[in-house]
């Protein structure tokens, strides 16, 4: 039996110094421990830390504690009013029971649903056993990524919340032995490359304390659109988070991020470049979608994601600029 120690941290410093795996809502970690994928020797419960508030900052931005539950965040008045894309993304994910447990920090660190990662009978998984190979390549790959993949990993990043935060250009604030650091969400997530086991910029022992969102852009509209086989409780085949501002029929500001298609929450800079300053028309939306997917590398079963992602982008842009 895999035994482990458990302690409850009383302060951020104490948690960071403990040297164990942090556990918040446990919706990912406990699952993976049952599967034998995660085998921590020490669990440090951080749900008691004073990181559960949502506060407006002096610069008009928002500070979200790492322990804020997904349900609470989704239904927070400021989030609903000013960061609607985030509320929509949160509510499209998982189930009410899971959202009641899952935390902001934990959601950012959610691990892939790749079935070969989650089943330890496959020794060849570069995320679990660096250098062992990738069982997903050549296996059942309908749900796998088409952007940001490498010869060593094609696993999809599963989070909806992180996609919305990517479009909102959030910053992740971490604390650890070396003090406090702020990491843009773009820098936080790593491409798999030749080291798929390194998924983010956290150093050993570092703890996510907060996420900050910049002040909401006045006059912008926000949309999160998630496409999947069934109506609820399924990871995205593709999703799009859009923040857009138009005036005089032209696009003055736009941020596009994609879920379900990338090995990390996928910022579609190419789409934004196509759109900036252009009339908000179907032709430009389609051109933006083409640009976003131009580097897509589908596997044997997920070629449809390329077209589906394009349509998702077009619909989200259409709604956000209507």
């Amino acid at each position, binding site marked *: 039996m895999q035994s482990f120690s458990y302690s409850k941290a009383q302060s951020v410093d104490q948690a960071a110094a403990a040297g164990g795996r942090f556990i918040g809502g446990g919706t990912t970690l406990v699952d993976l421990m049952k599967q034998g994928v995660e085998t921590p020797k020490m669990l440090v419960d951080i749900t008691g830390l004073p990181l559960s508030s949502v506060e407006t900052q002096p610069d008009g931005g928002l500070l979200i504690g790492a322990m804020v539950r997904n349900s609470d965040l989704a239904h927070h008045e400021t989030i609903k009013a000013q960061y609607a894309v985030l509320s929509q993304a949160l509510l499209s994910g998982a189930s009410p029971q899971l959202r009641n447990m899952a935390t902001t920090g934990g959601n950012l660190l959610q691990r892939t649903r790749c079935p070969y990662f989650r089943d330890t009978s496959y020794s060849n998984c570069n995320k679990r056993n660096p250098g062992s190979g990738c069982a997903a390549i*050549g*296996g059942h790959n309908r*749900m796998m990524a088409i952007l940001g993949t490498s010869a060593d990993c094609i696993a999809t990043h599963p989070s909806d919340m992180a996609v919305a935060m990517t479009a909102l250009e959030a910053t992740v604030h971490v604390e650890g032995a070396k003090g406090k650091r702020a990491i843009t969400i773009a820098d936080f997530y790593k491409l798999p490359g030749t080291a798929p086991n390194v998924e983010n910029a956290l150093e050993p022992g570092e703890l996510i304390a907060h996420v900050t969102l910049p002040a909401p852009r006045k006059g912008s509209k926000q949309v999160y659109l998630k*496409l999947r*086989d*069934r109506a609820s409780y399924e990871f995205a085949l593709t999703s799009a988070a859009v923040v857009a501002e138009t005036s005089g029929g032209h696009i003055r500001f736009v941020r596009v991020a994609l879920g379900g298609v990338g090995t990390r929450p996928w910022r579609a800079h190419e789409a934004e470049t196509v759109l900036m300053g252009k009339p908000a028309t179907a032709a430009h939306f389609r051109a933006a979608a083409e640009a976003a997917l131009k580097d897509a590398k589908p596997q044997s079963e997920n070629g449809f994601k390329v077209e589906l992602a394009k349509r998702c982008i077009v619909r989200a842009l259409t709604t956000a600029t209507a």
Partner: protein
Amino acid sequence: MASTTSSPNGTSPNGTSPHGIIGRPVSRIDGPLKTTGAAQYAADFHLTGTVHAVPVQATVGNGTIRSLDVSAARSMPGVLDVLHHGNIERIYRAVPNDPSATVSETRPPFEDNRIYYWGQYVALVVAETLEQATAAAAAVQVEYSAETPSVNGELEPFAGKWHTVSSRGKVDDAFAAAAVQVDQTYVTPVETHNPIELHSTVASWVGDSVTFYESTQGVVNHRNAMAQILGVPRENVTVVTRFLGSGFGGKLFPWSHCALAAVASRRLQRPVKLVVTRTMMFSNVGHRPLTEQRFRIAASADGKLVALRQDALNHTSMVDDFDEGCGEATPYLYSVPNLTVTSALVQRNVGSPAPMRGPGAVPGLFAMESAMDELAVALKMDPVELRLKNDATIDESNGQKFSSRHLRECLETGSAKFGWSRRTPGVGSMRRDGKVLGWGMAAASWGAYRFGCSTTVELGADGKARARCATQDVGTGLYTIFAQVLSEKTGLPFERIEVLLGDTTMPEGPLSGGSWSTATVLPAVAGAADNAIASLLQIAASTPGTPLNGVDAKTLRLTEGRIHRSTDAPAQGVPFESVLAAARLNGVSGDSTSGSAFEDPKTKALSMHSFGAQFVEVEWEPEIARLRVSRVVTVIDAGRIINPRAGANQIKGAVVMGVGMALLEETVYDPRNGQPINGNLADYLMATSPDCPEIDVTFLDYPDYALNSYGARGIGEIGLAGVAPAIASAVYHATGVRVRKLPVRIEDLLQSEIREA
């Protein structure tokens, strides 16, 4: 989910239902036990001294065990025993083709070192706690000589022997000469039964007898099979299934884990609990097999069928011949002079398939009703009209009369309730609120059966009526059916009625499958109640010191729980329990045994089936390839409905299952090792609450008195029949994409040439 239910032809059977309890929409009597958590399912039995068993599964899909090292596992904390092919004591095979003792897998567990499918049990670890057993199971070291398994999802080309299921006329000549022809192949995928209650066995040996607390759809069959497998007399085996968290056919017959738990308990002389995990459910306890069916269907230019040929393949395991029976409904559903149905099996490295709700007919009707829709398109004919034009008046496969067939009224009623006359036939021609609408329909059918059943009814001095029967309520409302009959016969309210099921020490009742439970138990419980009442009235007529002593028993009645003269009101009579008390009796009982319809001269000469019609609306957003089922109208001709509330609940559940079959469900095997790679409830998609359409259920409620005196048939499977082809036809109507391989996926819908609503 909005829904409605109606029964336009409701009549009281035999005109004898004093307070109308038969046919009344009543709540299930076991509801409070379930909603409060008091109902005990198999895994809820915690016997003193219970130990836990966890199987070890093969990680290859084809090969042999080269070495199996249990030394590490054996020495781990709490471990009591590790069983495998090298040390298992003799377990016997069940007698082949013995209908009283059917098993799911011919090969007993651990019979040899061969691996036939991924996940096959190779060892069993027993430990004091579940956690210890789980940890030790992971420490068993197995090495294999592995070969690539055959899990190919395509069954053609097939070079083996075909078996003729039904044949009349000259189908190939008629097809070739016909004005309009459709020749297409339809595929239904592997579907996994996913009852929320996991398969569970608690086996407890005491001396030379064993008791099973089981999740089974057939306690009697389970007892008989276990007696054969364990090599003990039937009377030494008891099987208890008080409640079942459903089974959908997957729990009809015993699986390997049941025998393993019993053998472990016999060795250790302690109760052993074995709960199959959800992942194991995808490999070790059955599935609906892959089917591939070629349909050739032809008609005259005015839409009269002239030829119908079905050649159906289904996969099976390497060691069991499981025939899905896709030709179940084909020979009798329509009038067609030239017809041939053939079938054959293709072996794959998968666990044994098992019956799944509507086996044979449900995948068979997906193919046939899809082909009928394609024929209607080719004929430029309305699909309802095509079915009406080819309605059968007799069963043309054998010349028999139907006991009761109202398919025409199902189609007409459904058409009217759905508003079918407003349908425009052009692909993508109907729109609403920025979405394209697709309307599709299909006919449905399922057999009507009655098997043998024995029941005891007791009228107690405590003022209660009790029924006992060794059948089981799989969650659909059988307890309540018994209670309704007892209430009808005695006039007692449900509060004074007890129904005891799911225990082989009681009189033998039926397996819960094939939609036959209600039709099977009704005659037995009614007969037993009549016999108990007759004895009671004799006692009332002959017990000194009681008011009716000396009265001719023939003139006495039991009404509202009171014994009275037939010429008096019940209030003038006496409570039956007071008569029993005066007679110093604890109670009086009656037994009854009713027979099988297969041995009944009245029913043997009749073709007995239920019928139905499914009408479906889908909403299609072409811009984002999003398709949802928005509305289903289902009309069911299943005889007299004893409890329309529980009945409608079953039909609605079946329709939702049909949504899953049409759009979501598919077990996917990794071709490299044969593992069901989406073996969990997140990755294997079933319909969720937001996927449920608005469902309108109508029971025609025509009694079928050939089957039993209540006129009841059964409703467990008919609600699923026809749903998937109706959805696929609606998908075609909305998108122009004809999907012949389920499930309909976004990949298919992206092919639509309709790009905006």
